[in-house]
């Protein structure tokens, strides 16, 4: 079996395992099957990345040759995102067992089946080279995600899930309208074929409208600033494990789809010229960085605080895109990867506290630094990464972002990035202050250190944050290859 023939199985294995999972009773087997399927998927994605960086892989489903048939077309950009998604899921699952047992005590088979569906949907979006197939996988992952969020023990999870359902459906519909317009104009749905046929018809209002619809639709799924309203509630009320998984994967995949359309299908020399896309994205990105960080500084609920911080971090990624250069795109891909690392670690630490204390409110963090030193130290170290302290992964991506801004002579962006990093210090410091510098009130239940099953995965991710802050070969190499694949017309055979 060649790598090309193996590659689609990173989507198929979770998809088929989800069916098995849905039938399994009890608490152990669904988790075990999920773990095995996710690790298999991650290993396949890891094997695919080096091969895809060399040459674009193409797999035709049912042996119907593209562009008629559906193909999976993988270059450095998709392979990088796919490895991130599958890898994050594989790292999060060992952590999931205890947390899910506590928060979703019943019908775990269905819960893990939904998780696997969401995972295979996200991977399918990433690997597919067919525009309509991307929409179908987007719906698979979104519907599964709504179900996962609704599993939250707080009743407000239902409302959060419903709100996400409405906004997510609007986003997916916008994407579908955009794809429909493209199909009307070109008669093809294959991304590479679209890229070839679009130049002839691209000076029409239909194609311009298609670009606008796709940007807005994916902006919704990406939680770009004015379209981010679904995210804080969804992240806050979902079960901790779902938040951990979504924070590292869902928005990243949406960003990837947007980039794929803007850069590969429409070609940057058109999409950044015909609409003031660069300016629009830059303004929204900066606004998102500020608004997200600002609101995060005042949130009493730590999960919600981290959710708003995610809105700000999405801003950094979009800022890198708006600079339209290899370095800028590299920074965007780097931050996509590194943000997944740090946010997953932070949400894991908070989830561990919720497991022990039963609440994620700031007032319940008081005095925890003494009784749960390992958990809170993990939180503080991952917090350093999100601030962007040297030797952490967050520093590397911010460094590239600043470099990209300086290359374009946009020194004011550097100032803005630094100011929002200072705001990150403020919101991370609030937790540290509560945990170490305040006494635990007498009426609060005393909480001991968390079980090792939760601590070890959290610390593995914290260690990864530092590892990728020092050894940047995989991240910078992969991100540069991804950026070059997108800007250099990587879809061309």
């Amino acid at each position: 079996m060649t790598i090309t023939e193996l590659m689609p199985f990173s989507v198929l294995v979770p998809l088929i395992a989800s069916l098995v999972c849905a039938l399994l009773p009890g608490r152990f087997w669904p988790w075990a099957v999920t773990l095995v399927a996710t690790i298999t998927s991650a290993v396949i994605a890891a094997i695919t990345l080096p091969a895809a960086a060399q040459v674009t892989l193409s797999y035709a489903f049912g042996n119907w040759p593209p562009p008629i048939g559906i193909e999976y077309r993988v270059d450095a950009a998709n392979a990088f995102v796919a490895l991130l998604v599958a890898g994050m899921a594989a790292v999060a699952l060992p952590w999931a067992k205890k947390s899910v047992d506590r928060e979703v005590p019943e019908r775990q088979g269905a819960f893990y089946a939904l998780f696997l569906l969401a995972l295979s949907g996200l991977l399918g979006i990433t690997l597919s080279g067919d525009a309509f197939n991307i929409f179908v996988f987007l719906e698979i992952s979104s519907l599964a995600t709504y179900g996962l969020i609704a599993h939250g023990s707080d009743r407000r999870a239902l409302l959060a899930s419903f709100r996400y359902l409405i906004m997510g459906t609007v986003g997916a519909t916008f994407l579908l309208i955009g794809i429909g317009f493209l199909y009307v104009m070109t008669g093809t749905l294959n991304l590479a074929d679209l890229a070839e046929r679009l130049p002839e018809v691209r000076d029409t209002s239909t194609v311009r409208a298609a670009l606008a619809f796709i940007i807005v639709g994916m902006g919704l799924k990406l939680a770009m600033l004015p379209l981010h309203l679904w995210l804080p509630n969804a992240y806050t009320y979902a079960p901790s494990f779902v938040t951990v998984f979504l924070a590292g994967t869902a928005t990243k995949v949406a960003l990837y789809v947007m980039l794929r359309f803007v850069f590969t299908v429409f070609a940057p020399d058109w999409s950044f010229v015909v609409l003031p896309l660069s300016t629009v994205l830059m303004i929204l990105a900066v606004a998102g960085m500020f608004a997200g960080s600002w609101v995060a500084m005042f949130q009493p609920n730590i999960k919600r605080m981290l959710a708003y911080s995610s809105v700000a971090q999405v801003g950094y990624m979009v800022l890198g895109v708006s600079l339209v250069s290899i370095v800028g795109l590299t920074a965007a891909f780097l931050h996509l990867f590194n943000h997944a690392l740090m946010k997953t670690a932070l949400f894991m630490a908070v989830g561990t506290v919720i497991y022990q204390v039963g609440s994620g409110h700031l007032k319940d963090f008081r005095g925890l630094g003494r009784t749960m030193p390992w958990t809170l130290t993990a939180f503080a170290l991952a917090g350093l990464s999100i601030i962007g302290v040297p030797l952490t992964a967050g520093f590397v991506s911010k460094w590239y972002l600043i470099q990209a801004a300086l290359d374009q002579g946009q020194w004011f962006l550097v100032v803005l990035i630094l100011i929002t990093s200072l705001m990150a210090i403020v919101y991370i410091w609030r937790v540290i202050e509560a945990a170490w510098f305040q006494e635990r009130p007498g009426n609060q239940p005393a909480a001991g250190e968390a079980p090792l099953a939760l601590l070890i995965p959290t610390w593995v991710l914290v260690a990864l944050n530092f590892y990728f802050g020092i050894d940047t070969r995989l991240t910078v190499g992969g991100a540069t290859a991804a950026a070059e694949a997108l800007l250099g017309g990587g879809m061309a055979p």
Partner: protein
Amino acid sequence: MRENGILRVVARFLIPLIMLFGLYIQFHGEYSPGGGFQAGIVFAAGWILFVLIYGLDAALQVIPERAMYVLMVAGVILYCAVGIAGVVLGGHFLDFYPLLPGKHAAQQFGIITVEFGVGVTVATVVMLIFTLFARRKSEWKAAKVEDDQP
């Protein structure tokens, strides 16, 4: 509704025909209009008519809820199994040509099997959704009766 003689007679007459028509769409779907999705819906519509006339409990004796749940998954598993069979026999995922020696026979076998999986899943999902909603009302009624009593 159950006491209405006309409804009972017409339903008893129609339900087998509806289900038969569903199966017709299912098994002629590969070369004429139809296919698993439509067949599943038509079949489930016949079942829903049965529930409306004879009640949910009678219908659940024929196909228990757990069986629906298993069949729902089994349909997709059948679909995936055909896809995997293509890989095992040396082709791509969902590649029907390696399944049988003849080209047309292979495509026909593949598409009928896959569509049968689709039909089973669609029919049972529709039945399950209907069961959950129908059950909900009786549960809600039962809960309300209990609330009224002090």
